[in-house]
């Protein structure tokens, strides 16, 4: 292992030593000999990730306290309900368990080698994700030395010059962390999955996919893609065992991944490529890849991390125009209190549950002579109309893999809530990967090169060629291009290329940019993507209403 420089400032150094001593050897874990699901909660791809994580340098870091920022190891108790301002109002973080003592808590302590904690990239102020605005602020406050900029994945590739913003451009400009995965994929037991396609690196602006040490042709072949941190809250909804969670995936009939401890099938909605079945297995991988923790976290810490994630909720709690979202007359689909008490495992794409239940009081408020109340009511009515656009405005959904292919026909005349049907969350109810075109060409964000500016493509581009012995991709054919093969990096399936597990809708106001690759910088850009992609033809009014609705979630 390469010699490392590590100067952590603040609480946590002692814990780090203890953590390393307590860690189990990954080699031993990988050799557990359990076929299929691993009883050790270490998926087949993780040992390879660990090798790369341990190869990468660890930079000098510091994480001083700052406004709205949770520093690893700072030890401040986390209150039962905290409000954080954002440009649309206030976000709330609610701890159902009451005050969380963060001192010594593995979610909040720097348990790996690079000074990060889970909270580094799952900040309460950013709806337990991390906004690009916060990342930029943190760069300025620490001169790029906060652990979030760690070379392993906070840099475009680990060996770029430290302290140079260009080395961190994807994180600073689009909020993207590097995800590195073995290629070809590994099955749960570590055996090689033979992919149905070949993958050629057409463009490698970060240098990581062709890198001799970190790339696809290295001794430990890895593909690098760049993704946003997902929301580590409201987890009961996307880990449910309710509607649609079965041993076989309702979208393709293949076996669902299973909880290695219980054997129960997973809804496969946790990560962008569904590679981890449970919060616990996700935590094991994240500690290794993001925190550079060399080993498997012990059960006690895993239980505390999962316990925290299972009781924390987040949603907007006030809206700058519509007022408080914590009142008794708040529509049942809004406000963090309602999110916390909602029922998980429900399909909401219907007129009985609804995805985000609204109220008639907001849709048709009583007239008021008070100008302030009238303005508030107008915003509430706009949010309600935006909900109706989301729920009832039909358009032709066409060429979306894992949507048009699951019995609806291509095209299908449906609404936003067709795909975003999970009650209270707006994710798919189960097995939620789809290809909307956020990463696959021709729909992915790609500015044509031209001589009039110096902007260059930021993301890698891969040429995908589906093998002759398998059906071509149903809508893209046998040869096509992608910025991120998504689920296919795990399954090896040609028709999974570019399919991404959709994210929840909560706390959108606090965590731009959007989509897994951060390609929509604002809610307007997000709505505009869909408008272009599906030729929806929103009116200005519909667009504004929809944005108001999304900003209130």
């Amino acid at each position: 292992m390469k010699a490392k420089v590590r100067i952590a400032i603040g609480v946590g150094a002692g814990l780090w030593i203890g953590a390393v001593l307590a860690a189990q050897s990954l080699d031993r874990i990988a050799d557990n000999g359990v076929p299929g699901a691993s009883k050790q909660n270490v998926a087949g791809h993780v040992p390879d990730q660990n090798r790369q994580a341990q190869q990468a340098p660890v930079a000098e870091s510091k994480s001083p306290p700052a406004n709205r920022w949770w520093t690893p190891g700072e030890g401040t108790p986390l209150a039962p309900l905290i409000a954080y301002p954002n440009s649309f109002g206030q976000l709330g973080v609610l701890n159902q368990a009451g005050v969380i003592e963060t001192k010594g808590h593995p979610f909040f302590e720097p348990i790996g080698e690079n000074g990060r904690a889970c909270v580094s990239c799952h900040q309460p102020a950013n709806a337990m994700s991390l906004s690009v605005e916060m990342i930029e602020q943190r760069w300025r406050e620490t001169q790029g030395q906060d652990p979030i900029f760690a070379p392993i994945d906070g840099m475009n590739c680990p060996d770029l010059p430290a302290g140079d913003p260009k080395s961190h451009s994807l994180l600073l400009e689009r909020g993207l962390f590097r995800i590195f995965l073995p290629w070809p994929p590994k099955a749960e037991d570590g055996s090689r999955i033979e992919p149905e396609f070949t993958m050629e690196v057409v463009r490698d602006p970060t240098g990581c996919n062709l890198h001799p040490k970190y790339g696809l042709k290295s001794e430990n072949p890895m593909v690098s893609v760049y993704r946003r941190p997902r929301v580590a809250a409201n987890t009961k909804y996307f880990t449910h065992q309710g509607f649609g969670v079965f041993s076989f995936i309702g979208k393709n009939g293949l076996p669902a991944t299973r909880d290695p401890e219980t054997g129960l099938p997973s809804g496969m909605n946790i990560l962008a490529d569904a590679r981890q079945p449970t919060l616990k297995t996700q935590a094991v991988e994240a500690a290794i890849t993001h925190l550079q923790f060399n080993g498997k976290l012990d059960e006690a810490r895993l239980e505390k991390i999962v316990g925290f994630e299972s009781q924390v909720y987040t949603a907007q709690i006030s809206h700058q125009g519509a007022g408080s979202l914590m009142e008794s007359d708040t529509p049942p689909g809004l406000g963090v209190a309602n999110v916390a008490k909602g029922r998980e495992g429900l399909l909401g794409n219907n007129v009985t549950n609804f995805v985000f239940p609204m109220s008639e009081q907001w849709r048709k408020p009583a007239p008021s002579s008070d100008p302030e109340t009238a303005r508030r009511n107008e915003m509430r009515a706009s949010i309600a109309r935006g909900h109706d656009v989301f729920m009832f405005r039909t358009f032709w959904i066409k060429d979306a893999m894992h949507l048009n292919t699951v019995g609806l026909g291509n095209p299908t005349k449906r609404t936003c809530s067709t795909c975003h049907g999970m009650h209270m969350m707006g994710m798919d109810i189960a097995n939620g990967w789809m290809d909307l075109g956020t990463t696959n060409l021709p729909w992915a964000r790609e500015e044509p090169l031209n001589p009039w500016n110096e902007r260059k493509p930021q993301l890698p581009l891969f040429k995908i060629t589906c093998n002759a012995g398998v059906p071509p991709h149903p809508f893209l054919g046998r040869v096509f291009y992608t910025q991120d093969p998504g689920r296919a990096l795990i399954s090896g399936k040609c028709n999974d290329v570019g399919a991404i597990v959709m994210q929840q809708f909560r706390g959108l106001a606090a965590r731009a940019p959007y989509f897994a690759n951060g390609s929509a910088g604002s809610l307007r850009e997000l709505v505009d993507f869909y408008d272009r992609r599906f030729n929806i033809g929103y009116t200005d009014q519909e667009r504004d209403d929809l944005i108001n609705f999304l900003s209130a979630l």
Partner: protein
Amino acid sequence: MNRSIVTLAMMGLAGVANAAAPPANHRNFVACPIVRDTSSVPCWLAEYEGETYFLTIQTDVSAPVNPPWLGHKVLVEGTVSDEPRICGGIVLKPVALSVMQELDGSCNTMLPAEERYNLTFEPPRPPGPSKGRLAFGDPVTKPQSAADVASKSFELRYEFDSLVMFRHAQPLQQILEHARQSGASRVQITGYRAATLLSNGQLMREDEQMGRRRAEQVADLLRGAGLTDLKYDVKWQDETKRARGVDDAALRRVQVVVDR
């Protein structure tokens, strides 16, 4: 055999053979699907020999018949019914639809809604949210506890030249649950390759390896879902000679027998 070659051949002359024609009230053909909008859900149509046929309305994952895809041809295997035309098309009922795997950019016809083609019935679900339940029944239901039988048979049906897909999640779940609940010791899996007799008298055969691939895939899926302790007896069979132009779609199948 290379599947793409088979599919291409299927669309041309090789891979199809001349045989006796199906009965007069059957329509088996390959064509581009057409989608016609209505004031509620769209209709799916196809044209054959100058006539328009109604295939299905827009459905959802739970429906017994699912719409085809623009961008692909569709194999239609249907019986002419005496129901009134729907969306201007002669109603084929029952009908089986198979999306052809290769892309075909010429299949891109979307017709606008016209008053005269509006549905005369209320569709099981509107084009947006449902009325609180899946319109056609739950696609994946937890089965009843296993009956006390020594052996139970299941059948999975397939689209032409196709392996497992979304609609197989339910029967696979039933097999899994039955095997677990009954304490099964053995599972016999037989995959069938079939053919369909087209209305023009040509016989359209599936990939030569399709029976084997279907059987082996089902065995892999059951093992992958946790049925690892059973004895697997995996066979395959060619039934292309059974095609008569009537219910040929039912021949494309995998039979699974679970024994205690």
